[in-house]
Every structure is written in structure tokens, then in C-alpha cells.
């Protein structure tokens, strides 16, 4: 899973550093992207391209790992053996996605060790939605369906991006996501078409998750600083608002057909086919992403405990002759 953890974008004030790049190499690089060819790790690339891609792929990887935690806690309590097995398979997929993505980011020159350290130290971000709790089994179902649906919108767009290793990883990831989406939808439909108690349960979970879901794709384009160069380099493939509109268009009707309501009185599709909604509380989003959410501390603590508890195994296995080489592709 994946969403815009924060703004992917270059702060308007920050220098792009492009004036320091070799103009001939830069022109060749841009021409390659313009004719639809992918960039591979050994190609020349502008420092800004490398930096933005590392940040984006690394955040995506962290989101997969941290994102597996809220659903992971429900494996043992999932109703019935079959659901436990399916929930476990999904969580295992998500952790596998993180592995693929860390490797893709690593080809750009940041080691996996450094990325994992930065996650635990709070230096790098992950999708902000995972700073909220999955209070009930129904919350877990809403995550499986709608957060994964959001992730798919993002991932399908990014799979058309310009960086080869990221595209290869996303191709595998997208193939697995189709199971997540169907699994999540099935679980939500089961509750929504069940007893009045089950219906209430899923409606309440949806009410809790709707505000975070609306922030999943990141701040509105109006507030975003310029992303033009990242679009041209095919790092960012679709604007935040574009992804949000696509998500609403695909999933609001599927929510409504179950007789569920969306907790936003303003939500509607206008005559121009554009979804209108209450602007999410971006100040609150900022507060939570900067550490003050209900689960931030817990998510990192779990990750850190896993890291520390496994350290002796890694130490015991490490060969003294081992030499670090970054992965090829």
C-alpha cells in the first residue's frame, strides 16, 4: 500500500540544482524519457531525479511494512480459519512488497540499512493513514478494501513512470494487489449485507476511516508546490487531485450500492463529472504526519522491536568476508 506520505514535491524555495548539471547529459536524459524509454540504474541522471526517486520509493517501501501492522494485529482475531489464512497471506504480500521496493530504491545508492534506520529514527515518512488504529475487524476490512484501492490507483500510475527497477517491482506488486482488493471488498460486502449489528459495525469503521482516506493522496494540487519537473521526468505520474478524483469515481458508487453512507454531507458528483467534497483538515494531517497521531509511536516501536530482536540472528549469520554491493536492477 502507498499514499502520498507528505508532499512529494520540491519546496518552491529549494533550488533544483539543475544549473549545476551537465547540459548535454541532461538533454540526453530528458530525450530518453520523452521517447518513452526507461532509465536504468547505471544511466546518468540528475541529482534531483535520484533524490526524489529514493525518497518516493523508500516512503512507498516503509508504507508497505508499516501498513501491514494494523491488519497484522487482526490475523489472530479474524473470524474463522479461512479469514485468518487470507489475512495472513495479504500481510505477507505487503511485507514482500516492501522487500521489492527497498531493493529498487537501493539501486539508486541508498543502502537498505540506511533506509531501515531512517524509518526507525523517524527521519523518513510512510503513508500517514497508518498512524490511525484498526479498532475492530471491520476497520481492518475497510483498510483491506479502500486503502488498498487507493494504493492501486497510485501504483498503477507509478508503474508507467520512468525508472526501470521501480517499474519492475510495481508490475509484480500490482498483480498481487488484485487479490487484496477483492478480498477486502468481499469482507466489507459480507458485513454490509449481514445482520443489523454487522452493518452498524462496518458503517462505523467507514466513518472512522473516511477522513484519513480523503488525505491518502496528499494535499490538494492548489496547495502543492510545483511538480512540473517531476511530471516531465515521469517521477510523479498523476497529480494528487487527479488520483483522488479517480478513487472517488471508482469506489463511492460501490460504497453506496451497499446502502452505506459516506460521512461527508458535501460529497457529490457535479454536472461536470467532478466530485465535490469537504476539504480535508490539512492542518490535522500535518500534525499527525509530524508525529502526533494516535499510533505513530506504537508503529515505530513495533518496527524497532522487530529490528532489535532479530539483530543477533543477523550477526550470527553475517560472513566476515561479506562485502556490500548494491543490487543490479
Amino acid at each position, binding site marked *: 500500500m502507498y499514499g502520498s506520505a507528505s508532499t512529494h514535491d520540491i519546496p518552491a524555495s529549494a533550488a533544483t540544482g539543475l544549473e549545476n548539471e551537465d547540459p548535454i547529459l541532461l538533454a540526453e536524459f530528458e530525450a530518453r524519457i520523452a521517447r518513452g524509454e526507461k532509465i*536504468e540504474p547505471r544511466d546518468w541522471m540528475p541529482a534531483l531525479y535520484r533524490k526524489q526517486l529514493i525518497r518516493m520509493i523508500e516512503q512507498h517501501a516503509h508504507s508497505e511494512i508499516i501498513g501491514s501492522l494494523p491488519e497484522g494485529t487482526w490475523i489472530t482475531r479474524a473470524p474463522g480459519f479461512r479469514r485468518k489464512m487470507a489475512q495472513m497471506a495479504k500481510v505477507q504480500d505487503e511485507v514482500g512488497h516492501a522487500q521489492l521496493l527497498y*531493493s529498487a530504491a537501493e539501486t539508486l545508492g541508498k543502502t537498505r540499512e540506511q533506509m531501515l534506520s531512517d524509518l526507525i*529514527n523517524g527521519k523518513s515518512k510512510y503513508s500517514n493513514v497508518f498512524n490511525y488504529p484498526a479498532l475492530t475487524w471491520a476497520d481492518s476490512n475497510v483498510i483491506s478494501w479502500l486503502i488498498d484501492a487507493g494504493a492501486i490507483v497510485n501504483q498503477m500510475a507509478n508503474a508507467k513512470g520512468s525508472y526501470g527497477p521501480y517499474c519492475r517491482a510495481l508490475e*509484480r506488486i500490482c498483480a498481487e494487489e488484485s487479490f487484496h482488493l477483492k478480498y477486502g471488498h468481499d469482507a466489507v460486502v459480507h458485513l454490509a449485507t449481514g445482520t443489523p449489528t454487522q452493518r452498524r459495525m462496518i458503517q462505523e469503521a467507514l466513518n472512522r476511516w473516511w477522513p484519513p482516506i480523503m488525505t491518502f493522496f496528499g494535499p490538494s494540487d492548489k496547495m502543492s508546490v510545483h511538480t512540473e519537473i517531476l511530471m516531465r521526468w515521469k517521477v510523479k505520474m498523476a497529480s494528487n487531485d487527479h488520483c483522488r478524483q479517480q478513487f472517488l469515481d471508482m469506489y463511492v458508487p460501490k460504497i453506496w450500492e451497499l446502502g452505506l453512507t459516506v460521512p461527508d454531507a458535501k460529497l457529490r458528483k457535479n454536472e461536470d463529472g467532478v466530485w465535490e467534497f469537504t476539504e480535508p483538515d490539512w492542518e490535522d494531517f500535518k500534525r499527525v504526519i509530524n508525529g502526533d497521531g494516535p499510533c505513530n509511536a*506504537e508503529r515505530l*516501536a513495533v518496527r524497532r522491536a522487530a529490528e532489535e530482536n532479530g539483530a543477533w540472528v*543477523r550477526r550470527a549469520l553475517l560472513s566476515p568476508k561479506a562485502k556490500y554491493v548494491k543490487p*543490479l536492477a
Partner: protein
Amino acid sequence: MSLSSLDPRIARLALPDSPPPPPDKPELDQFETYEVFHQKKEGTAYAYVGPVHAPSLDVAFLFGKEQYSRRFACTGLWVTPTSAVQVTAYGDDAGSIYDTLPGGQIEPTEAPLSESAEEQAAYAAGEEDYDIFHLKKRGKAHAHVGKVRASSPAMALQQAKAVFGEQRPVVNVWVIRSADILRSDEDDRDIWSTTPEKKYREALAYKVQDKIERFKAENSENTPQA
């Protein structure tokens, strides 16, 4: 703002509220990298699937199997240390990177499938088999095109040019000494068969449309349409 935890690990581990940030991990904490190739179907060429981190080649094979065959059809796996792969420059999507290599006058000698007395002599003379992989398009995966026999990786690349150099397009070539690749065993083929009891992790196992239609039909009976 915080919340009493729903994660059983938190309560069990009695984690402190705000521990000091841990020191950065040492550089090789996650081990070396290995590159993994899989065979999707019997009789098809092995293709690159991605890297894994592991403490040894054997463990890399296990991790590779877990990471790359758990969810996708697979009938064989090859694993090699990243450092064992010789990589040429990358060309454009259209041409062949072989064209940029200095041309040598070399007799093509594709490595034979079984060893004759002649081959045994070649091995004695310091020649070895090398596996050759081509990338046909940027963003896609390298695929195995065959083996050559040579006395060094550089000679192997020259041999590859002589044997496979006519192919188009070739964006990039990987050369790996065959002895550096750990290969799944033909006799262990049953490790690739997946149990039919795992249908629950396929999208196809979830058919909700009937349930939704039934729900809608029942509900429209109860609430007459205006």
C-alpha cells in the same frame, strides 16, 4: 495523543514509551545481495526477477524462492551473487549494445549441452562455461539466451557477440560464470507445485457480485421506489 495499544506485541514486549533513537545499522547488517532468475513455465527461458539480501548463496536461494515464487507460477530458480555478474554498458531501446563492443575475429563456440572428450580438454585448458543474458527493452527483465565457453568474462562477452550478436534489440548484456549460479534441481521439481488449498489468496476466489445483487433486490422490495 496516544492510545492504549491494540497490538499484542506492544503489551507483551513492555516497550518503553519513548526510547532514545537507536544507533544507525552497520552497513552490512542486511547482508550481501544476490540476483534471482526464474523460469515461469517448463521449457521457457530463465528471466531476471530481482535481488534478495542473504548471508550465503544457499539462503539466498530460499529467500529468492519465497520472494519470487510464492505468488507466481515458477518451475525453476537460479541465484547468483550480485558481484558475480559482469555488466556491459546500457544502449538505447532500438539498437544492439554488441555493436559498440570492439569487434574481435572469434570463432563462435557455443557451449555444448553435454561434455565430450573435446570439451574436457577445453576445461583443462582453463576454459569455462558462461551464461549470457540479454535485456531487450529498458524497464523489462533480462532473459537467458544461452551459454558460451571462454577463458575469461571478457572473452565470454566476445563469444556472446559472435554467437548472439545478430539478435535485435539488445540494450544490455549480463555475463555470469556458470559455476557461480546455484540452480534448482530437476529432481526437486515438486517444490514448485502449489497446493490447490490456497485458493483463498487468489482474486478469483472472491465472487461478491451475487451477494450484492441479492442485497439490492431485497432492499428495493422493502423500500418502494418513488
